[in-house]
């Protein structure tokens, strides 16, 4: 017979195949999406160009080199109003990072304590922690920031109350003063020779880590258990103390002293920083508490029982069995809470703390009229920060992930 009829009919390409044929459909959808997206961006850009032209503005970042002309009341690096806008932005970035790092540390401490205590058998403590967690999770952060700021400025004594016979007194052996002008803490004074102490201290931390590695290696190789706690503490503390006294105590503290109507000496932590720090930490701590609780609950009870059956003591069970498994559940959401805290620090605006949003994204924009460039830089800074942190998190996740099929 004819061989032509055996051959399957040659498919003829029809235009409707672009939608109905699964081979082409995804290409069609993607092309349409790409075209729409490009049209959208073209529309945005042409609008922006037209608007800028009609306002007589151009798009350049030259304003960053101009004199800023405004003061920043809390700066980690030397700054005066004669510096450039770029330096003001850097001061703001450092302030953001300062409150973010401080907040992450305190939030972790609070969160872990609250999370563990919420699982406590002690009814009263568990309920108290529930009240803390629910209270902070269900009330806006902004309200907490404003309330704590009001507490710091309205309910704390003014510096003159610290005078002899006044109603207020300093804390911790006359070294910390909590007043409505801010919290005054002792400042370290670095005399010549102090670098040696710091170097020795750093080196001994490295030494302690090395010792612990060595002890673990001995344990795994020979089964002999070297003491870890006391020796590593001694390695960290003793050499630094020795050098400290040998060099004639080169590091001392400058205590805040009341002079006239205000405190002199020491470091002044403004109420804006303290309020923002406390509010961010308490708020994020409540979320971290839930994460920690969920993490501990996620390790099944059989794991604990199995460890006990192997004859492990409770402390060791926690360290070697429960925590490694709980950490896998805890760490990813914990890091995203750190990210949230960092982004929430932009609420500094509410209390007048000079973070990057208030310098670069606030006063600089108002003074130079460069909204577009300023907001772009601000957005890029935050974006870069979160991409860095989430990149680190993804790396960690892929390292600790359980390997399945």
């Amino acid at each position, binding site marked *: 017979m004819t061989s032509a009829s055996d051959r399957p009919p040659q498919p003829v390409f029809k235009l*409707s195949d672009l*939608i*109905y044929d699964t081979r082409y459909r*995804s290409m069609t*959808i*993607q092309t349409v*999406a*790409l075209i729409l*997206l490009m049209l959208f961006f073209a529309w*945005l850009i042409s*609008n*922006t160009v*037209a*608007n*800028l032209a*009609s306002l007589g503005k151009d798009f350049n970042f030259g304003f960053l080199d101009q004199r800023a002309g405004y003061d920043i009341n809390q700066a980690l690096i030397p700054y005066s109003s004669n510096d450039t806008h770029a330096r003001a932005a850097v001061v703001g970035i450092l302030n953001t990072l300062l409150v973010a790092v401080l907040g992450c540390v305190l939030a972790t401490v609070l969160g872990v304590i609250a999370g563990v*205590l919420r699982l*406590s*058998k*002690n*009814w*009263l*403590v568990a309920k*108290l922690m529930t009240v803390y967690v*629910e*209270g902070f*999770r*269900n*009330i*806006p*952060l*902004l*309200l907490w920031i*404003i*309330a704590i700021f*009001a507490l710091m400025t*309205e309910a704390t004594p003014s510096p003159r109350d610290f005078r002899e016979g006044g109603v207020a007194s300093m804390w911790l052996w006359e070294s910390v003063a909590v007043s409505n002008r801010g919290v005054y803490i002792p400042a370290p004074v670095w005399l010549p020779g102090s670098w040696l102490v710091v170097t020795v201290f750093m080196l001994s931390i490295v030494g302690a880590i090395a010792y612990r590695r060595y002890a673990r290696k001995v344990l795994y190789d020979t089964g002999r258990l070297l003491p870890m706690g006391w020796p590593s503490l001694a390695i960290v503390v003793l050499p630094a103390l020795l050098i400290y006294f040998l060099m004639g105590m080169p590091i001392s503290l400058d205590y805040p002293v009341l002079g006239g109507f205000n405190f002199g000496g020491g470091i002044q932590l403004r109420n804006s920083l303290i309020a923002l720090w406390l509010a961010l930490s308490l708020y994020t701590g409540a979320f971290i508490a839930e994460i920690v609780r969920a993490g501990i609950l996620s390790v099944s009870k059989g794991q604990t029982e199995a460890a006990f059956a192997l004859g492990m003591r409770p402390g060791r069970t926690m360290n070697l069995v429960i925590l490694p498994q709980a950490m896998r559940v805890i760490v990813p959401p914990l890091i995203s809470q750190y990210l949230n805290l960092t*982004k*929430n620090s*932009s*609420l500094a*605006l*509410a209390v007048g703390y000079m973070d990057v*949003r208030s310098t670069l*994204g606030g006063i600089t*924009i108002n003074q130079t009229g460069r*909204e*577009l460039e300023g*907001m772009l830089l*601000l*957005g890029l800074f*935050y*974006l870069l*920060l*979160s*991409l860095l942190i*989430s990149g680190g998190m993804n790396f960690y996740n892929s390292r600790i992930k359980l390997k399945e099929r």
Partner: protein
Amino acid sequence: MSDTHSEAESLLFVRNEMMPEREPPLAESGAFKWLRENMFSGWLNILLTILALLAIYVVLSEIVPWLWHSVWRADSLAQCREIRDATWGSDVASACFAVIADRWQQLIFGFYPSDLYWRPLLALAIFLLAVAPVLFPGLPRALLWFSAAAPFLMFFFLWGGSIWGPILVALGFAVGFAAYAIAGRFTGAGAALAVAVVAALIWWLFAAGPLTRDLSRIAPIGLTYIQSKDFGGFMLSFIIGISGIILSLPLGILLALGRQSDMFIINKISVGFIEIIRGVPLIVWLFTASLLLNYFLPPGTNFDLMLRVIIMVTLFAAAYIAEVVRGGLAALPRGQYEAADALGLDYTKSMRLIILPQALKISIPGIVNTFIGLFKDTTLVVFIGLLDPIGLSNSIRATTDWNGIYWELFVFIGLLFFICCFSMSRYSIYLERKLQREHR
């Protein structure tokens, strides 16, 4: 024989009757046992209990007297102080809740005309009635038709203006549906959907505006128009929060599906959108909306700040919801996807019938948490000049009558937010329990 038996009987003591039940020892029963086991079972526990009691005492000793000596009727803070001095003496801490009694209308409604308060209240009632059948499946399904109409009704009652605007916008959906039905006869579902979207867009962009104008001239039915700048207080938070919640869920699900997609460009667009939105704080986006949007839109356009905020909040929450839903999609075992393919379901059907119901169920806690976060974040609009409760509390404090009043306002605002957010989280727990299919 019988003798010995009776002898033994008399010698042995065999109890013939039950002893009366006795109370357990005092330390092993009731409140004592509970206290001992739950609060004083070891030295650490005792320490924790004492610390907790101390903390509770410190907090309560500040708050309780302050609440107890509260003044509810006064015209200003100074008058509050006078009443306190007269009643309890000047060294007593006293709450001046008179500010709430005086200004609660402002904190709830902002500057909405006070003779029209029935309109937001009616809108709230419509909202509650509309949301009930969605939240609780036990209610009659016919109510869902009301839910579909509710957004237009609420818009009409809140802003007022001509009734024809909302009606014609709602008709756009009918136009789209009609186009879908007609085009569906000639082509397949995909093309019909495209035709429907285009038809609806044409209706909204070109037909709805002129028709509204003409119809309002012919039949001027409507309510007094209220400008957005008069909206404020909790009403504002509610409107922004609820619009954001309703709009962000579908968008977030679409973005999550886009991020899971194999199509390269769709995937990259979704990832880019999600990461850029999530990487930048909401407050920066709000400033973008208020400062920069005029650059991006055609010269001369100027639209409502509140609408801009709603759009920004929606986009922001959608990115977060997308990540939550993606987590749910990733948590489903691969077998579910493979089973859907093996049944021969196409992408839409497999998502609608198999994947999404399970994935969304897993993501409920995360989605509700995002909603709670969104609702709390509505307070940030104070920074771009909208008068949310916190903004109003600032302006109340700026008046001479109430200068220097803090805590009463904070307590009131915090309590209202707490009630809303806490009930949302309780509902999510209820829903989770109800949908749970294992370990019943």
